[in-house]
Structure formats: C-alpha cells, structure tokens
C-alpha cells in the first residue's frame, strides 16, 4: 500500500474533505505562482535551449539599461538593423541571448568585423556583458538584424524591441526609426 492510500485510509470521514481542500488550495497556489514567474522569464523555447541558468539572481543586483536606440529605415521585405548602447549598471554579469521585435518575425544578434580585408558578418549566439560594462551596438559592429520587416519602416516610425537575457530578465523598448545623430 502506498503512502497516499495510507493517508486516506487512516483519515476519518470528517478530515477527508479538509485534506482534499488543502490539496486543491496548494495546487492552485502552485499554478498561480508558476504563472507569476512568467513576468520575468522568456518563453519556454529559451528554457528548452538550456540558456537560463541563473534564475535565482536577485532583482536588486540586476540593472541593465538600453540607451540611444534607433533602427535603420527600410522598405517592407528588405533589411534593417537596430542599434543602441547596452549598459550593465548592476553588479552581476549577464548575457544578451535573444531578441524579438514587432517589425519582423526574424530578428537576430549579429556582429560585423573586418577579417583579412573582407567585411564579415556573423550571427552571435549571445553577447556577454560584465558588471559596469557598456557595449555599443553600432554600424560596423554588434547590431540587431531585422530581417525582411513586415511593413515599411519610415523615418519617425517606432518599433518594439525585446531583449532577452541569460538571467531570465527581459527589456522591452520602443525604439525610433531613423538615426537621431544624422
């Protein structure tokens, strides 16, 4: 006889409903707490990739800021890129592991660099950001590639950009189309 059967067989008829009620409440609470965690966690696809390894990180230690964000104007079906400076103001290292945008279903982290006289562009699985470090995402370096956007991206428009971190945190930004410095 297993433990559960023992529990029920030994419980009186009066305590049985109480046990069932307690079970119901604990399961419900568990589900509710589980749902609440979604606020700070990327989608399940990320978890399946085994990228989330440090979910225990205290929020107070984590502080990453995005500034000077903009995206290159383009036409629907062509290419664009988003740029910004990522600043780890917090006291713990983290890594940018995935991006998404309202502009396109396909958004990737890329790096352009010169190698042996040839300009190379490669997709990056992640970009590590040490505590207090600032990493510029700028033309000719790190950038977020927006592949074949659904709509035209005109100067002055705005798009959303979501940045997913290894820690499980997400930054959601609305960024302007068009380089403000030009």
């Amino acid at each position, binding site marked *: 006889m297993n433990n559960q059967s023992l529990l029920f067989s030994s419980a009186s008829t009066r305590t049985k409903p109480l046990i069932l009620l307690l079970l119901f409440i604990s399961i419900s609470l568990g589900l509710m707490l589980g749902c609440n965690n979604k606020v700070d966690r990327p989608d399940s696809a990320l978890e399946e990739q085994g990228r989330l390894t440090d979910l225990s990180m205290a929020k107070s230690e984590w502080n990453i800021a995005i500034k000077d964000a903009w995206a*290159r*104007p*383009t*036409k629907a079906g*062509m*290419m*664009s*890129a988003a740029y910004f400076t990522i600043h780890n103001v917090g006291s713990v290292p983290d890594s940018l592991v995935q991006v998404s945008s309202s502009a396109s*279903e*396909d958004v*990737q982290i*890329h790096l*352009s660099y*010169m*190698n042996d*006289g*040839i*300009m*190379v*562009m*490669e*997709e990056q699985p992640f970009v590590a950001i040490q505590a207090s470090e600032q990493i510029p995402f700028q*033309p*000719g370096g790190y*950038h977020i*590639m*927006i*592949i*074949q956007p659904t709509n035209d991206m005109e100067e002055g428009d705005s798009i959303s950009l979501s940045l997913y971190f290894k820690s499980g945190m997400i930054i959601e930004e609305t960024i302007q189309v068009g380089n403000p410095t030009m």
Partner: protein
Amino acid sequence: MNTKPTLAKFSSYVLTYIFLSFLLIQSACINDYKVIDDMNDASFELVNQDSVRVVFPEDFRGQYVVMGFVYTNCPDICPLITQNLIKIQKDLGYPSNVQFLGVSFDPLRDTPEILHRYKEVFKVDENVNFLTGEPKVVQSFMDSVRVRTQESMRTTTDSGKEIYFLNHSDKIMVMNPKGEIIIEYGGSMPSIPSLIVQDLQSLIQ
C-alpha cells in the same frame, strides 16, 4: 682668412637648393595618383535600377566616377557605404561631371526593381546609379576591380525563410576620365567621405 663665410654661404645655397627641389617634387606629386587598374580593355554590360542598359566603363569615359560595392540584403555595412556615397556627392556640391555608382555584387537577388527600392530607402539623388547584371558579367566585373565576395551564412529563419549573407570587400573607388582606377578607399569608414572629397577636389582643379 675669409674661407669660413664662403663655406657658410655655399652651404646655405645647397640647403636652399635642396629645399626648393623638395618642394617642387612634392607639388608635382600632389595630383600624381598611381593607376591601380586600367579598365580600358574591359567592357561590362550591366543595367541600372531603371533597367536601362549601362556599359562600363565606356558610358562614363570623360568623367570621374566614384563607385561603391554593395548588396541590398546587407543590413549593416552596405548602408554605410551607400551613405558615404551620398555624403561625398553632397559635400562636392552635386557635381555634374562626377558620376556616382553603387554596384551590386549580389545580382541574383538585386534585380533592378530591388535596386530602385533601395535607392528610395536611402533617398539617393538622380545622379547616383545602382548597377546589376547577369551573374557571370557581374562576377567578371568584381574580379577586374578585385572585389571579393563569399557566401557566409545560409540559414532558415524562425519563420521558415531561407536567407544568406555575403562576406565582402569594403571599398569605394575613384576612376579617372581615362577609365583608370586611381584611388581605393575603405568604403564604410566614417572618415572616408572627407578624404575622397579632398582628393577629388585636387584632381578636378
């Protein structure tokens, strides 16, 4: 004895002579650009963004040509090259005797229609033409100006689109009215427009 003053005088003459010779040689060299590639034996039949036939370099003989090499599926570097072309044209005051070209090294995807849209995105002036053509012709053109390309990444995106990117040379070149490539620059670098403007102004004067 008055040998010392004579020697001093002689030395000052020699130094003045050397200095003036140096200045003369320097001034003669200012506009003396070495020919990197002579395009006169070449003839490439291409089309521009409006599907108008263009023969390179014949159609541009007699004028300076500033040309950059791009592909429109390039989200990062090629826009910088294109913006540099635009800036050079603007800083030179939209000269009618200088032709600006953006030549695609991805003719399979960069059709005239796509190049037309690319021009619209960058709000490029009329006097800038974007060229494409038959893949074999384009490849031969790229070989002749030593622009290297290689497929870097072919991937299927999350939404199922198959895309590829190209690693490529990063160049803007200047061809003189005789059909000779005389200067090459790093195409995407922010400092390039001012250098090209300076060089072209000294050449055109």
